[in-house]
């Protein structure tokens, strides 16, 4: 008879202790995430060229890689001009565009909101692709950091550096036609795929690629985060004979796209590392 209350006391004590242990969570990090600056779209493209062999390399892709994807060959006149240059650099940073030849500044142009508006007007007047969506254009070009450098060298160019916070807006129209940022691509989904997507109730996708890490949202709902390693993709490349080539530039880049099916609202937000 005396042992029964002891058991109950012991049980209660254990439950109490364990309960307290479980409730006591590790102190949560309450420090507010420092408010980040508005994300910039950074594109650094290095181009090397050799007038002797009339070959060029862009963003870490060799002349052979470029030839495989149908990159054009330059005319002799262009090679003559290029052979006179040691290098040229175009920089779009902040509110100015700077152009350098042989490391010497050649000209500088204002690149603020007002000057960009003039450029959009010129594009609207002379290019027959439809009016430039100023809001989208500003989303891309405001706070952009673009550097394109040309170097006369036989070396392979530096890997492409792309870090785009702004989502590339892709739309699939009701007839399956694909457009990117409002411009038609000439590609379209097959009717079967479109029916499947519509029947499954998929309205939009948000895809972010950040140096091999893939975040995907379907209708605003997050799916598991996938991480692809360059070595892993090489295994798949070898297994299936895909001839993907050197993927270093892709694995050093980050970008994202928002895809909308039909007339749904555009996907908002950015892709942040």
């Amino acid at each position: 008879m005396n042992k029964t209350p002891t058991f109950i006391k012991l049980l209660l004590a254990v439950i109490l202790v364990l309960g307290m242990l479980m409730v006591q969570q590790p102190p949560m990090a309450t420090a507010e995430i420092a408010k980040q600056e508005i994300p910039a779209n950074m594109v650094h493209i290095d181009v090397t060229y050799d007038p002797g062999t009339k070959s060029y390399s862009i963003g870490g892709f060799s002349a052979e890689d470029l030839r495989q994807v149908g990159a054009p060959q330059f005319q002799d006149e262009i090679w003559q001009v290029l052979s006179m240059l040691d290098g040229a650099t175009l920089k779009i940073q902040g509110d100015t565009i700077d152009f350098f030849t042989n490391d010497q500044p050649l000209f500088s142009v204002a690149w603020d909101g007002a000057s960009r508006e003039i450029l959009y007007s010129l594009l609207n007047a002379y290019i027959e692709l439809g009016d430039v969506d100023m809001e989208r254009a500003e989303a891309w070009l405001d706070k952009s950091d673009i550097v394109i450098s040309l170097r006369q060298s036989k070396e392979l160019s530096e890997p492409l550096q792309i870090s785009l916070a702004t989502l590339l807006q892709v739309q699939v129209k009701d007839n399956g036609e694909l457009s990117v940022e409002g411009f038609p691509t000439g590609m379209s989904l097959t009717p079967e795929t479109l029916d499947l997507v519509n029947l499954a109730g998929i309205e939009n996708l948000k895809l972010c690629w950040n140096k091999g890490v893939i975040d995907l949202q379907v209708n605003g709902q997050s799916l598991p985060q996938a991480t692809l390693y360059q070595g892993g993709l090489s295994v798949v490349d070898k297994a299936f004979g895909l001839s993907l080539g050197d993927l270093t530039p892709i694995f050093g880049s980050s970008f994202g796209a928002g895809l909308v099916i039909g007339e749904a609202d555009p996907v908002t937000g950015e892709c942040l590392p």
Partner: protein
Amino acid sequence: MPRFWRVLLISLIIVLVLYGIYFALGRPVIPLPTIPYKVSPGQPLHSIITSDGADELKLTLNTSGEIEITSEDQSLAALNYTPETFDNTLDLGERLLNAQKSLQSKEDVPESSPFLRKLINWVIAYYYHIIRFRLSVLLIALP
């Protein structure tokens, strides 16, 4: 107190104490023995396993939210999930499957059992939050 209740109480206390220790240690992942699986030439997986020369591929499921594919200790790909993202994936997979069936048969496909969905979610959440295991399958390519 009857013997039955006494045994039950003692068992309960032991389980609680053991789980308390496990919880206090930070709920570490409990590794289970690796399951070897031999893949014969001609099977679809064989070319993938042999493509990097290692002739072995390891699939590891960590119920704390990670699925990883490794070859000779080098990570090839990984998938990080939470019960929520897992449920979203199930939901998407079910909708795509139903849409495909519906397109093929031109008839409405009945929805799957909500109880089964809940049961799967409970199991995933249990092994994600309460007890965590690591289960590995070693795929070995036969010559």
